[in-house]
């Protein structure tokens, strides 16, 4: 078996379509991407067929989204689907491009939720979370609190 064959057999796949994993990952970091409506400027996660805000059918410009954002709101989920570790802080993160993303946030005490978390700066990182049915590694985007903010 050649090296090339090995490389094509086991792939690295993003958990969500709006997470882009470069060929040279992890040497080159994965990032979130979106589509910007050229008519009204609205940014969406991932690709778009048309704009939900202005109904324009494009064109859309692909944009690389920031790795940093801030917590808009959150909940702490205690009861969840079997097999998941709980509790977890499930937040809505505002990114600088005017688009929001759902995320787990780490570095906060889930047992002491607080209004102090509003506006907290967070930074994205990626992590292998599972192996899929076909044996590919599944990579997720997670967020952690930026120290001291």
């Amino acid at each position, binding site marked *: 078996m050649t090296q090339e064959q090995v490389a094509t057999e086991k792939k690295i796949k993003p*958990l*969500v379509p709006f997470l882009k994993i470069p060929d040279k990952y992890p040497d080159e970091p994965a990032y979130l991407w979106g589509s910007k409506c050229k008519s009204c400027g*609205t940014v*969406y*996660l991932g690709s778009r067929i048309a704009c*939900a*805000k202005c109904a324009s059918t494009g064109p859309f410009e692909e944009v690389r989204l920031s790795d940093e954002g801030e917590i*808009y*709101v*959150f*909940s*702490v*989920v*205690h*009861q*969840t*689907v079997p097999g*998941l*570790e*709980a*509790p*977890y802080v*499930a*937040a*809505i993160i*505002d990114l600088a491009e*005017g688009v*929001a*993303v*759902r*995320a*787990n946030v780490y570095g906060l005490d889930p047992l002491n*939720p607080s*209004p102090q978390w*509003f506006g907290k700066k967070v930074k994205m990182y990626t992590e292998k*979370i*599972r*192996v*899929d*049915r076909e044996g590919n590694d*599944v990579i*997720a*985007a*997670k967020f952690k609190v930026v120290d001291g903010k």
Partner: protein
Amino acid sequence: MRDVAIVGANMIKFGRYPDKDLVQLASEAAIGALKDAGITMNEVQMVVSGNLYQANAMVGQRIMKEIGATGVPVVNVANACATGSTAFREAYLAVASGAYDIALAIGSEQMGKMGLLTGFGDRDPSYSSEGVMGTGLMPGVFGQTGVEHMRKYGTTAEQFAKIAVKNHKHSVHNPYAQYQVETPLEDVINARVIAWPNTLYMCCPTGDGAAAAVLMSAEKARQYTKQPVWVAASVLTSDPWTQRNPIMFDVNTLTRNAAEEAYEKAGIGPEDLSMVELHDCFATAELVHYENLMLCGEGEAGRLIDEGETYVGGRIPVNASGGLLSKGHPLGATGVANIVEVAWHLRGQAGGRQVEGAKVGLAHVIGLGSACTIHILKK
């Protein structure tokens, strides 16, 4: 559009019926509504059936085969938690348009002990983002809704808990509720957290249920009843685009849009309402809807519950039935049941939970994704 009245209204006690099937539950509710209206299936000219979990299985026709297969048109409706109220609205439109004089709306669901935690279908579950990239589960989603209100107005977890205290207190007088148990504030606060700030008693139970209503044109209504309940407004909205909505459900904007349209159509303002039955799938939801339905000003919802204004006996009683928190939330039945509850109050038939002198009531339902219905009913 013609005036339309509710002439028959009925629901079965919500709960768990492992020994009955869906058609039996729905039939029981439908026959009760027909008897209440003083008619049989022979007078019904069209039927709308709302059901979610068996949306691909011709529930309306199956009910007809049980209670009267007259061959009239049947429409099956699914619209998430607004399924029942959407079915009611389709029946209303059928009569208001002049196409039919008598219509029957039925909402039903059999959920058993299944929770509101969603499955992943046939897709590879390795790609479920739940608990890795935030949450899409209902308790967490509505937790975030409440937390957004905290962020905007400083609302506290205790204020949300007070909603559950109120609704469970009301439920004691509602024999149709799945649970009729009072929960003092400390019990609500100390209960197991499901998704902060909602604890166990701040989340609606799932279960089985059915409800039905007979709608008639004004002429027919006068023939069959001395107590018609008029549909002053029937509104359905979906989500307009809002900034975070693609990933964070926005239950506020479409409710506000529906409320404005309903008050406008009815020529009735929030100050004219005697009572409200609103979609308290979680305690956090009820609080934000006080403002969405304009029962108080922006940022005043916390004060409204603190001052007890939404208790039966207060300025504007909300969820005299005990709400979904106590009554239960069999998805397809809920929207019809809310309307039935308001109709009973307007007729003075709500027993120990009766809002005295109720003349005008509002029934609000949200199906996440989203669909919002508002019905304003008057004597």
